[in-house]
């Protein structure tokens, strides 16, 4: 089993565009018991990955409840890093 942060980044490796909710639903089976498996913490991980050039924003929208959803996709540099560093 991968550490949670690795598993989050690995989701993007195939070019998928995913937001926080998407990450949570895809990892729910394996990581739902993790205390760090919370939207706020995952959002921060994604924003840090973006700040460090691994991911970039690909789309954004407001839902019916007026909540913002930001979708990310991997950058070329991110692909290189994820493939090279995360097994």
């Amino acid at each position, binding site marked *: *089993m*991968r*550490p*949670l*942060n*690795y598993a989050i*980044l690995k989701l993007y490796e195939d070019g998928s565009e995913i937001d926080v909710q998407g990450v949570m639903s895809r990892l729910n089976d394996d990581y739902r018991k*993790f*205390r*760090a498996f919370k939207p706020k913490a995952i959002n*921060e*991980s994604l*924003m*840090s*990955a973006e*700040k*460090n*050039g*691994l991911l970039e924003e690909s*789309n*954004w*929208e*407001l839902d019916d409840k*007026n909540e*913002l959803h*930001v979708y990310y996709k991997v950058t070329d*540099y991110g692909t290189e*890093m994820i493939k*090279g*560093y*995360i*097994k």
Partner: protein
Amino acid sequence: MNDSVDLKQARRARTASFFKKGILIALFSGLLYGFYSAFIVAATSSAAWYPGLNGAEGWYGGADGWYDQVLANQIPDLVNIAGASFSVLMAVVILGALGSGINDFISSLWMIGKAAFKGKFMDFLRCYKSKPGLVMIVCALIGGPIASTAYIIALLMSGPIAAPITALCPAVGAIIGWLFLKQGMNLRIGIGIIICVIATFMISSTAFEDFSLTDPMYLAGLAIALIAALGWGIEGAIGGFGTSVIDYEISISIRQFTSGVFTLFIMVPVLFLIAGHFGLFPTMLVEAVQGPLVEDGLLASPLIFFLISGLAAGFSFAFWYKGNSMCGAALGMACNGGFSFWVPFVSFLVLGLYLGWEGYALAPIQWIAALVMVLGIFLIAVNPLEFFKKQKEA
């Protein structure tokens, strides 16, 4: 993409909130570094270390002892520690490494405990064995034992001027972030970093009295101080980057555990072995944390001081990594660089006001320099033209 006003505002608020949080975390790391420094000085100035356990003179020789002579540039050939003879260089490095090793090891226990409390202990073990974990281990060795030992040796050879030299590390970190990690850099950020470095020199300018550029030992000390600056610069940039892959609480646990175990259980015993006094290692390790809990109504136990310094160091480094990963190395390290003000300030509060030791009051130039540093950080963080335009619009 044609965004509605609500959508634009929501995105802007989200980015601004993340950015502000990153800055606050990085600034707070500098303040906590002040507490770490003050309490590690308190720990290594108590009981067996300085005034002496049971009336003995202490490893640092007590008042006007060998270490005070070294600080006054009167370097003796050999010094006596715990009944054994050491060269001055070995004595300074061993005592420095012993103190920082105990601190980092205790700090790692705090940080691993915190990670475990948050359900991340298994992830800590998994990350340790991974490639990014290996990067953090190398980072810990560069920033921990290597840079710290270089700093201790530089202080011995050049005196307190070594401190501002090591404050070049934000500049080093920013350059590494720019060259290798694709982080932003422009003239404004460059000027901001230079202002921060100047401010740090101002803070430490009270240490420039014995300035001697003709003394080879002094110059060699400055060169060694640069190794420390390089080490911490590399650590800040790479550690910050590592935190974008590894959770920051796990990164810092790996950092402190690696640094603590390597320094305390490999480097220090090897140094004792080289000095020919290996048998002293276990005795001094135990005595290093022994001492009365309270003396004259004040805390006096090295163990308590180490527990506080380790806790502060853990949070300080954790926030350093996290701040760098949230703001980029240039801004994160400039905010953290506030430690050059926080260290004398917190030392004044803890050592000067609380413990009543002399020589910790702040000079006016240090207050002025703190303001200069705020200006530098502001310049790195915000484009003044855009900032004032927004204020006008508001």
